[in-house]
């Protein structure tokens, strides 16, 4: 599905020959030099002086957008904001793109749109008609860049999401709508304190702080302030509801569901086994290659199921459509669920299709068959629904990718639809079980077998990393990982089981040799019983932390290490057992020495996807204790 909000990401700014405009600059540009920037934090590299959007809505629903923006560069790093960009596609007319660069001394240089570089706005599609024009505006510290353009389009829905908070402070921003006679509107503030609107309507905001840039923060787009507005034509009943959005999408997609004879034949064959739903889901997930072709309404509307089946490729909505059609052929009901891959983007109080960028499937199953499946929701009318993402090729059947858990999706049903909560899976659904059976030689070399078993989301992530590697690169990855824990090491006999089978456990086995593992200090021999693996995450600097913390998701990790020591080694001291327990993390480790064998066991559980700001000190404390346990050594003589 097309995600217009992400079109500018990753775009390289190319220099191009300036096409200098000789006409006098407009008054709004001439006035920019007079704006005084109030004192900013030292880390502020640039500020938005003004950002203005004027929407003129025609009775036909066509919208003309006039956009103006000016940025003042405060530091050399602020030059990255010195460009003008306009996104458009085949259904959008872009006019009047031009920009200005104002030197600190006030000299103004103008560039016309012909100086802009044009690029495809897509980075994952085989083809998209979405394009972007970028004006690379000369800038220096203390200087100002400004640009403006006009867009004319007929949007798919009569609503606007105005994202007014950015990665740099905004001194002034304004949204104005010019509506035809009789039109009304309804506004919804998201992550922001409501501001009174003026006649027009016009919304004016000033002195908006930057969205903080913090490690492991939620996606900036999901925490930034925004205003959603529905434009309501005369006779329109009310603002659009989620049911309206679902109905629109259902209508768009329903014509694409017809099954072709070859599809029906294949469906019968695939469904002949004991678990037809799983077989069809796996076909859509594994045998249909992800290929996105998005042109016009194709950003939302799927290709026909038969076409997807024949080509054996399609994007997320194509895969969901094919699966829905095949399930329908065997009498199993399923539904589209429109979702965002960014948690927090969907605001229940404001219904809009532009909140989403992805489509998955909800399959109606019996309560009994839901046993052992994790991505299950109970719907009051539809009963038990299994959520399945056929685009995520490594996510096991019965699971949801981590980025979709604890989020919201729009369930599209025959009578409309509704927003539903996507479940967070339990830690036990995503495990890493490490077992090490090792021997310490008298010269201090540690050697033996290590087995790592990953399930659920942890297996999915590791599969994704390994599949794109050659055999040699996979071994290098293991070597690099071991080197983070061991000064000297070699992994040999590496085997990887079930790499391409997402429904099976991913098993990695290798033989470890680590010369000099035991450290002799005076009469003592130090042995770290943990050997490999890290659970503690990086310490969160709390001084200026403002946002929640995003974890890798719920998971359960266990280590079971046995080290057979050389005869005659006498235990002096063992590391103390460590226990950590709070609502986010539980951790317990213990060491024992018996009959010449040093044993270390630990169990680490991460319970949540997101840790709230107030709980971060406790999380830091937990990680510090875990890190200390990971460094601790046993002493022998």
């Amino acid at each position, binding site marked *: 599905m097309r995600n217009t909000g992400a079109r500018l990401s990753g775009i390289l700014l190319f220099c191009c020959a300036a096409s200098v405009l000789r006409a006098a600059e407009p008054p709004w540009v001439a006035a920019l030099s007079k704006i005084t920037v109030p004192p900013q934090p*030292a880390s502020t590299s640039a500020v938005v002086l003004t950002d203005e959007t004027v929407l003129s809505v025609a009775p036909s629903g066509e919208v003309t957008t006039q956009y103006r923006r000016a940025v003042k560069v405060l530091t050399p790093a602020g030059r990255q904001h010195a460009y003008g960009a306009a996104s458009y596609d085949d259904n959008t007319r872009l006019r009047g793109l031009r920009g200005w660069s104002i030197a600190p001394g006030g000299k103004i240089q103008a560039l016309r749109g012909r*100086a802009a570089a044009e690029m495809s706005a897509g980075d994952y599609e085989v083809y998209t008609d979405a394009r972007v024009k970028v004006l690379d505006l000369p800038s220096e510290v203390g200087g100002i860049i400004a640009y403006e353009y006009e867009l004319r389009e007929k949007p798919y829905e009569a609503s606007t999401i105005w994202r007014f908070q950015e990665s740099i402070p905004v001194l002034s921003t304004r949204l104005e709508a010019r509506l035809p006679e009789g039109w009304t509107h309804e506004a919804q503030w998201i992550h922001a304190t409501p501001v009174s609107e003026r006649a027009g309507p016009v919304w004016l905001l000033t002195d908006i702080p930057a969205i903080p840039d913090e490690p492991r923060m939620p996606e900036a787009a999901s925490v930034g302030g925004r205003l959603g507005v529905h434009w309501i034509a005369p006779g329109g009943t009310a603002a659009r509801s989620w049911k309206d959005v679902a109905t629109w999408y259902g209508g768009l997609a329903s014509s694409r569901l017809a099954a072709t004879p070859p599809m029906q034949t294949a469906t019968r064959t695939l469904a002949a086994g004991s678990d037809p739903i799983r077989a069809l889901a796996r076909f859509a997930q594994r045998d249909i290659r992800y290929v996105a072709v998005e042109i016009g309404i194709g950003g939302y509307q799927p290709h026909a199921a038969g076409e997807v089946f024949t080509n054996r490729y399609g994007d997320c909505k194509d895969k969901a459509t094919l699966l829905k059609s095949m399930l329908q052929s065997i009498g199993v009901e399923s539904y589209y669920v429109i979702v965002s891959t960014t948690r927090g983007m969907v605001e229940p109080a404001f219904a809009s299709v532009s909140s989403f960028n992805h489509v998955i499937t909800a399959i109606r199953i019996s309560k009994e068959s839901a046993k052992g499946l994790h991505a299950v929701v109970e719907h009051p009318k539809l009963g038990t629904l299994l959520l399945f993402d056929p685009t995520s090729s490594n996510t096991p059947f019965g699971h949801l990718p981590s980025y979709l858990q604890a989020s919201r999706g729009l369930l599209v049903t025959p009578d409309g639809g509704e927003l539903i909560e996507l479940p967070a899976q339990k830690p036990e659904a995503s495990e890493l079980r490490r077992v090490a059976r090792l021997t310490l030689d008298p010269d201090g070399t540690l050697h033996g077998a290590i087995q790592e078993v990953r399930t659920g989301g942890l297996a999915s992530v590791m599969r994704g990393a390994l599949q794109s590697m*050659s*055999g040699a690169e996979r071994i290098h990855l293991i070597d690099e990982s071991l080197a983070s824990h061991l000064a000297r090491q070699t992994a040999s006999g590496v085997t990887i089981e079930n790499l391409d089978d997402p429904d099976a456990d991913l098993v990695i086995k290798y033989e470890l040799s680590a010369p000099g593992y035991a450290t002799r200090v005076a009469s003592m021999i130090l042995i770290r019983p943990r050997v490999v693996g890290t659970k503690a995450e990086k310490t969160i600097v709390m001084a200026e932390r403002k946002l929640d913390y995003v974890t890798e998701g719920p998971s359960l990790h266990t280590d079971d290490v046995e080290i057979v020591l050389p005869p005659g080694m006498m235990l002096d001291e063992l590391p103390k057992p460590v226990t950590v327990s709070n609502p986010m993390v539980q951790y317990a480790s213990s060491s024992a020495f018996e009959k010449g064998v040093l044993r270390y066991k630990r169990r680490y559980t991460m319970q949540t996807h997101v840790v709230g700001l107030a709980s971060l000190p406790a999380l830091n404390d937990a990680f510090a204790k875990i890190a200390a346990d990971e460094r601790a050594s046993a002493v022998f003589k």
Partner: protein
Amino acid sequence: MRRLFLAATLSVATATPLLAGFSKQQDFRPATAAEREMKGVDYAPGASAAILDWVEVDDDADSFSAEYYRVKIFSDEGKKYADVEVPYVSGYPVNGRITGVSARTIQPDGTIVPFDGKIYDKVLYRAGGIRLRAKTFSLAGVQSGSILEYRYQREWSENLLINTLWTIQREIPVLRAKLSLKPYNTRGEYSSYFTYFNLPDGSLPVFKRDHYELELTNVPVYTAEELAPPEEWLTSRVNFYYTNDAVKGDQFWAAQTARWSKAVDGFIGNPGALTQDAKAMTGKDAMETLRNVYAKAQGLKNLSYENQSTAKEKKNAAEVWAKGEGYRDEIVRAFVAMARAAGLDASVVRVAPRDRIHFSKEIPDAEQMSSELASVTVEGKATYLDPGTPSAPFGVQSWEKTATSAYVLARRGEPSQLVMLQNLRPEDARTQRVADLRLNGETLEGSVTVTFHGQEALRRRLRSWGDDDAARAKAFEDEAKTWFPDGSTVKLTKLTGAAAHDEPVVAKFDVVLANAVSSAGSRTLVPLSVFEATAKNPFAPATRVHHVYFPFPRREEDEVKLTLTPTMAPAALPAPVKLNVGPLTYENESRQSGNEITFKRVMVVDALGIDPKFYEALRTYYSRVTSVDQTPLVLVEKP
């Protein structure tokens, strides 16, 4: 694959008719039983796909190129090779186009899925006169075990000569490549050259009647490795290009250096124009004069390092000095002009920077020598200077302009001299790190002073060139944080020399090292080599394909003073350690004085390249260094 690159525009359009077409070897053909049963490639285990056959027919006489690919898919990951993107330059003067696209998928059972989908025309980049587009399409019915076949032709304006680049090594193995090129007959008006890099022994393009042919089998995948030479040194590729004149290969460098010399002489102009300025720089002897001129040149604004500079190139050296600015080579030439005006024997030196290529005199490509230095001879000794690199200390070239080939450009038609520029010594890139720490519970707290000399100072200055103080401070703090355990606090308190060119860079920090202290029952373990205690062996992989390549020799000197609490004492001091492998050496020692422990560590790398046959010894050496640096000081409570 063709590199769409405008080499030269012929003054007269060719009269040759367009005869585009595919060769018989580019025809689609059924899969053999062996191909259908293939599960992988022996010499590339784990490969997701392989190119079974790549046939490229390039015809410069008729301005077209035809390519055929036959790709076997081994795993789901390899299905991505069914998405094809063929870039081309559509605008004037190339007016390129892609024609004759056809494709099909051969299923593992031999059935054929023809490609009848849409071919899209995508804008990759369009600005000014540049029009870069791509034809994109996706093959249907692809599954693990499929064989993909596709072919297309690329055409361009008849009156253009376009260079050819065959990138032999891909991210998947190439089992057979058959490449041919029919050059344009320039009738002696222009020359053309073939260059080869890293082709297997005995594999060279062979001239047959009117075209060159190159056939290769079992081409390995390029493997990227840490601390390896630049990729351009290592990958297999073939270039064919035309030049603007009729110079033959064995006369190439003589002719090219003569061209450069003429251009330099023209830019420097009459040294007399700078005589008055030069007088003001005259010192008590030639060396002092040279230092004065160099300092002035370093004071020029270097436009090559300015953001988005649109300043025009200067006409001559006098203009550079008059305006106080120039691009990097203009500054080198302006420096040489001023040095000559001051009575010094100065020359411009054309250099092959080794961060990009490994110079070969046998390759007639002027692009190899893409940088400039200055050489000034004082009392019979040549000093190489790098005025074109901002903040380069006197006598220190940026590392890529050391230990590489260079031409000292002669004056007035004399032959230029090919020289090998000296390598740096470890002392020319010295880092001193001094920590004064005290044990406070579970943390180490105190101050750290780091002094970067020579090349190391230059690297830090260039890293932050153009940054403001806040960004520069952050860069130094971020670097220091990489030395210490996660969770440590590092605050820069003073920074000197970051904007100068002739003094070391000195950074002082206040630090609190968290997660550094650990326990062994009732004992406390403290790192002594605090700057390296969390470092990992840079050569973790057990195997190595390419040479190990250190950009330049260097020397690290660490000193750590650790003050213990009065109640604690070391169980024992670690014994001194000395390690070496060839030109790489390491030594440390610890001393105790009262409740202060002082740890000293010196590590020297005095090598550039190390053959992979010595990799195991090198890896063992580094693993021992890592092990020694991680050896803790064991503290016990005093009785």
